[in-house]
């Protein structure tokens, strides 16, 4: 039982990492460009498909990761330059609808190229085994690697925002865009770079997801809406909020799905627990969001 709890906790952490990769890009783009980008999930999907495709083509997992990351970055930049750039000055309604249109486009495009059926991508041998994380506790190597990647990315993000010139500009841009422009910084370029970073992070999340979940059209929106929950809980525009929110949501969702049914069956009849367990588990993070909002309407780490 303890082992199961430990394993599910790690799974929760691993899911939290993916949410974080998504949430970081989304919250940066919102915080700096004031853009609500629903199509962020599409970049996740594109990353997953490209990685799967490149792996089949090259036969090298590492090459497919590198290629997919680069390609998603390019797709993100193209989308920014072609469509989203004109949306920065528009209201949220326009942004939501236009990026909704982009989602329809991307989902259909993927369906045309790869079909609607789910793909399952495989792992190379060196990643598909289990490893000893604690004496007597074995955990899949790949998922452990995901957690590690997440921690590294979180650390890099932190360093970028607090230590680099880009991060300084990002923080300044978030609070005073005219000042940044007055300093002679090319705002357009800055925005494109930030969007590209966000896109690459989404692509990274997507390519990580490939071997764990089904790769299919519409996969981006499933996670996107959970990422919204992360951001609402954490506070929009806050990287710290995104980290905390992602871990909370990842844990609650994973542990809820694993343990709500057995826990409920202690209190309720088994058949009632069978029905209520999954239903409640799927609603858990939304109820958590409502509870957080009731106490803190601006999320846990409000910006400004």
């Amino acid at each position: 039982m303890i082992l199961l709890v430990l394993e599910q906790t790690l799974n929760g952490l691993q899911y939290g990492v993916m949410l974080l990769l998504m949430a970081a890009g989304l919250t940066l783009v919102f915080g700096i460009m004031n853009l609500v980008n629903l199509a962020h999930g599409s970049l996740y999907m594109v990353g997953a498909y490209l990685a799967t495709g490149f792996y089949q083509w090259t036969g090298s997992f590492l090459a497919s990761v590198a290629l997919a990351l680069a390609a998603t970055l390019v797709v993100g930049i193209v989308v920014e330059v072609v469509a989203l750039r004109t949306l920065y000055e528009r209201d949220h309604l326009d942004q939501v609808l236009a990026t909704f249109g982009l989602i329809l486009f991307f989902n259909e495009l993927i369906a045309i190229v790869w079909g609607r059926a789910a793909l399952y991508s495989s792992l190379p041998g060196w990643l598909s085994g289990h490893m000893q994380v604690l004496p007597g506790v074995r955990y899949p190597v790949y998922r452990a690697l995901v957690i590690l990647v997440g921690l590294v990315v979180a650390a890099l993000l932190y360093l970028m925002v607090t230590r680099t010139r880009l991060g300084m500009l990002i923080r300044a841009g978030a609070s005073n865009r005219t000042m940044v422009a007055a300093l002679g910084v090319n705002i357009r370029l800055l925005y494109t770079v930030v969007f590209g970073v966000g896109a690459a992070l989404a692509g990274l999340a997507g390519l990580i997801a490939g071997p764990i979940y089904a790769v299919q059209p519409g996969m981006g929106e499933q996670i996107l809406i959970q990422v919204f929950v992360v951001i609402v809980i954490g506070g929009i525009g806050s990287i710290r909020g995104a980290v905390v929110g992602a871990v909370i949501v990842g844990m609650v969702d994973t542990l809820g799905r694993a343990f709500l049914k057995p826990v409920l069956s202690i209190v309720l009849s088994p058949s009632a627990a069978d029905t209520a367990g999954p239903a409640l588990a799927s609603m858990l993070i939304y109820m958590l969001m409502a509870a957080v909002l009731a106490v803190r309407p601006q999320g846990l780490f409000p910006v400004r």
Partner: protein
Amino acid sequence: MARSPRALTLAAGVLMLALVPVAAELLDQPFYVDLFRRIMIFAIAALSLDLILGYGGMVSFGHAAYLGIGAYAVGVLTHHGIANGYLQWSLAILGSALVALAIGAVSIRTSGVYFIMITLAFTQMLYYLGISIEEYGGDDGMRLAVRSQFPGLLDLRNATAFYYLVLGILLLFLLLGQRLVDARFGMVIRAARSNEPRARAIGFSPYRYKLTAFVISGAMCGLAGALLVNQTEYLTPEFMHWTRSGEIMFMVILGGIGTLMGPVLGAAVFLLLEDVLSAWTVHWQIILGPFLVLVVLFAKKGLIGLVPDEAAPGG
């Protein structure tokens, strides 16, 4: 008023809708009764959204939730052998009003992008709830054994009778909407959309008015959901899928946000377009997506903007 281009358009539109069953009969194309009934049902949903979106400035990305609640109210009661339409539709309206009250109470406290994300998230929650309840078909959904029954009034199995009932409800809601937005209540929510700090400074507490509008809108959309499940004779959580919310919102923009006729026009054009495009290719959404982007970027006033209007104050 009576002779403005928009009033003429409205009159022509109503006349046209009223004649659809006759034309379908003459042309021997009963399919059109079905299509235009579907259009009117979505017109009601879009109209209900525009009340809070266009007039109240509340960007709800979760209006499909109420469509779903209304549909489930009918489907679930039928599943348990209660086919009485009065009861079913009352529950549809009441249930969606209550859900709107709960969602609105949390989300209206926030604003802007939070509001969008929260309404979307709660709708997704209801969608997952629908999927996970196997008793009512889970993600496959379930057939509606019989349409809602209104003994002594009318029989929904009669396609034409059902059609005119939907038309009647649509016209009623257009009238109610017209009165509501011009009444004191409507003036308050429009003022709050225009400039909320100013509305507060002159003494209005916008929250109560916005929440009330949100509930009214949800209840209207709930009735549209009850109609929709009778139309399709199939109950499915897909009614609550988040893309449905996006489509309803697009209907509002396409037709003309902040007008009453716009959503009706938008629903008609959207669904006809879907009908034509999907007959042409299964991948019709690859055309719809960019079309949507173009409409947002270049045609913000919607189709109704093509019809001149005496400068309507306080849009």
